[in-house]
């Protein structure tokens, strides 16, 4: 089994989840080397840029991984998303310079999501794809608006920008490739059950009992967030 871990913002907590679920994860000493692939406990751990996790899983180069909903949507990734994880949540917002200029240009790292957002509102605006520090585009009036992730809102406040509208609630998810799910069904279900037991111990949702992860048959669970299916109609 090959698992894709996103480098950066989510890496440590993603590994923490797998460690808590009883998996033998690469050690900190391992991670200090330049290696990107580690064999531990029968699992091949690969470390890739967060935006590439959906690509590896979609194409079956990794069986499963941890990816933010932002990257899942932007790549129109069709992998299963059996679990939302309970850390690293943030919001994707439409942000503007103060004084609410007319929406004519949007700078973003997420051109595909921005296009869907505009189409859904019937608004015509130009999209300017950027690689990072997207807020600057609004500050310097490169664009009228930006779409970006907001965690604490500090960046937006510092630059005296205004949050206008919620584009999507973003959470990291365990994603499982369709092909892996079909062909390594037992292994994948056990993986899901073990991670679920860590992330949602209170929950009986999809109570998978593989691998001895007995999940309590308690009260009906709360809805775990929008099961966004944007871009999930593609067949593979």
């Amino acid at each position, binding site marked *: 089994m090959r698992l894709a871990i996103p480098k950066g913002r989510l890496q440590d907590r993603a590994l923490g989840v797998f460690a808590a679920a009883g998996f033998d994860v690469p050690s900190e000493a391992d991670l200090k080397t330049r290696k990107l692939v580690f064999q531990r406990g029968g699992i091949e751990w690969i470390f890739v840029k967060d935006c590439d996790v959906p690509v590896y899983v979609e194409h079956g180069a990794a069986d499963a991984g941890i990816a933010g909903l932002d990257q899942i949507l932007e*790549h129109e990734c069709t992998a299963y*998303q*059996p679990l939302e994880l309970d850390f690293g949540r943030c919001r994707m917002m439409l942000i503007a310079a103060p004084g609410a200029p007319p929406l004519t240009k949007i700078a973003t790292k997420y051109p595909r999501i921005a296009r869907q957002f505009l189409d859904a509102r019937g608004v015509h605006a130009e999209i300017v794809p950027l690689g990072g520090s997207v807020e600057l585009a609004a500050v310097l009036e490169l664009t009228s608006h930006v779409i970006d992730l907001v965690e604490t809102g500090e960046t937006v406040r510092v630059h005296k920008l205004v949050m206008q509208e919620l584009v999507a609630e973003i959470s990291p998810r365990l994603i499982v490739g369709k092909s892996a799910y*079909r062909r390594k069904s037992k292994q994948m279900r056990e993986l899901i059950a073990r991670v679920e037991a860590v992330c949602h111990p209170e929950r009986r949702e*999809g109570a998978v009992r593989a691998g001895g992860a007995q999940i309590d048959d308690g009260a009906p669970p709360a809805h775990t967030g929008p099961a966004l299916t944007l871009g999930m109609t593609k067949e593979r």
Partner: protein
Amino acid sequence: MATKLRYPTGVRALLVEEAARRRRIETRFIDVLERARFAEVVLPIIDYVEPYAELVAPEANRRSYRFVDREGDLVAIRSDFTPMLARALAPAMRPDELPLRLFYRGDVIRCEASRLGTNRELFQIGAEIVGDASVDADIEALRLAADLVREFNGRPTIIYNDVSIVSSLIARSPAVAGALASKRANGELPDDIRPTVKKLIAGEATIDDVAPFAPEAAARLKAIAGALDPDEFVLHLDDFEEAVGYYTGIRFRVYGKNLLARGGRYDGLYERFGTAAPAIGFTFNVDDLE
């Protein structure tokens, strides 16, 4: 000038060795089909869009190259053989000659609009049994697909399900579609089907669990499962695609080392072109065979 050294995305030329390799595989493949008494049909590379408009989902439509021909009609390059065969065959077939066992070969072009996929020209060979609604035809098609894998890539694994099982659940609650698409039983499921959906996602559901929702499909799946080796033919009751397309019954994927073919039963397709006939078939991507 920029186009001098490359091809449009997703297409390429096969030079000597690759062409010879494909031809060898094609010949062996056709041998197996002909031994199983399948006869060849040849279908055109472009066709009008209009006859297929109703039965093809808009997303699937976007996957094809379309353009206006010299008479001003919208035409598309072939992207799926199965509806084309139905359109060609429905007006021509006589009830007394059914069932027909047919195969076709050729390229299809699909433009995947995703960043992950690319436009692709795929050389395919497909086989269909037209005019036989029986479970025996299902079993024959599944076995033939497995035999074809054995001819090339060794050990086949065929994962199958019947689309009417999941659609009967979705008819009770649309939330089932979201739950099965994400493999997460969310809070919107009504109480009467929640346990079944959870069992499906957990991989614990049996045919008996879903039989109350789709009795005919369940009986059929039992007959199929009883006739085939469970190590090679694996029933995944939770297998589900958002886009069901024209499939009405069993639907399957054929694996060797990788995905090699897809297929299924489409009993409503021929009726749309004038003559009702049940049909089942599958299509292999020839370049994925070894």
